């Protein structure tokens, strides 16, 4: 089947099987930032924004995306650079495989609740698993990023 939607601000037309997920479609469109880290819908690596909200692309049925807006890390280069620098400064990237999914959810949090407390950050990001860092460096980096937004605002 043919699916038309908006990807990172541009209209795209994709081919998909009826049981494909948005993740399958994005990978077929060479969107390399989006990763799949589990078969059980709970790792968060496949996170993208659908109509401005963070969702797990591995579970969104591809046909449901028709006519909607999808944004991946490729579409948020400026914010990704600033957040990526915070992550690097705090040593929060080790293998880095979890980073794009984490960043997409942090950017969603920054829009929804830019003044988030540490407890709110933890709760919001509980569905982003990382097997390397132990999360403390990530939390410091996210704190630093959110604080930098406040300074600019």
């Amino acid at each position, binding site marked *: *089947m043919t699916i038309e939607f908006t990807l990172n601000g541009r209209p795209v037309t994709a081919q998909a*099987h*009826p*049981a494909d*997920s948005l993740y399958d479609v994005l990978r077929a469109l060479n969107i390399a930032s989006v990763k799949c880290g589990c*078969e*059980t*819908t*709970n790792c*968060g690596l496949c*996170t993208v924004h659908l109509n401005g*909200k*963070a*969702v*797990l692309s*591995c*579970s*969104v*049925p591809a*046909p*449901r995306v028709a006519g909607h807006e999808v944004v991946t890390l490729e579409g948020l280069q400026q914010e990704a650079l600033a957040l990526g620098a915070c992550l690097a400064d705090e040593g929060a990237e080790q293998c880095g495989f979890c980073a794009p999914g984490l960043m997409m*959810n942090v950017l*969603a949090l920054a829009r929804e609740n830019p003044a988030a407390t540490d407890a709110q950050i933890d*709760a*919001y*990001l*509980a*569905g*982003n698993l990382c097997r390397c860092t132990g999360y403390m460096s990530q939390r410091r980096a996210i704190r630093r990023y959110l604080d930098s937004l406040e300074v600019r605002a």
Partner: protein
Amino acid sequence: MASYTNYVMAQSLEEAYALNQKKSAVIVAGNMWLRMCGLRRQTAIDLSKLGLDAIEETQDAFIVGSMTSLRALETHEALNRETGGAFREALAPIVGTQFRRTATVGGSVYARFGFSDVSALLLALDAQVELYKRGVVPLEEYQRETWDRDILTHVRIPKGRRAGIASVRLSKTDFPVLVCAASTDGETLRLVMGARPARAMVVADGLRLTADLQDWEALAGSVPLGTNLRASEAYRRKIAPVLMQRAVQACLGGNEDDH
């Protein structure tokens, strides 16, 4: 991997229902669970275009469309005000925010998972389900039945009860090892136990707030519990009275931190 021959965006409930009468069809809601099942089906029926994602407040109930996300319930102000924040407490431990944004209440209730926090809370609140053909059925009854081919259109949550929930998880965001949900109308209590590991069930109703709340061991002792890979029956027996007490405390307003 799942495989469907056709993916149909249902345009009406009648169409969805008619298509779903064939064993070769399957309803797609949040797809969070379904995607792991790897089903081969002729027809996948998508309910997302039927306007079933609204929470409507009436004088005596909240009428929740089956495609409403867990996140919408978790963050719904009036619903949480009415129940003492029970939806926020009960749903926040489920996987993550992205997950809860597309997991639906209808998929949770229809599936009748043993581990369901969602069903435990809704049972404690004495919710009803609305089925397209069959009409309104108490959740307590639906919860005991086997999976049929009707379509769950709404969940009705009656007003007038506060609720509390307590669970134990081996690690955050994992399935619960045991869940207890309690609700009160101000005079009596209703208690539900879930993740036993079998389906959630009402273990007591109409308990008087003062007189009947002395012996947690005895109350919990009557609940059928079992063993699965997360915990043994003996372990569940040990923690059941404590969870009951915590859930009751939470629903009576003393929302203590359990960690």
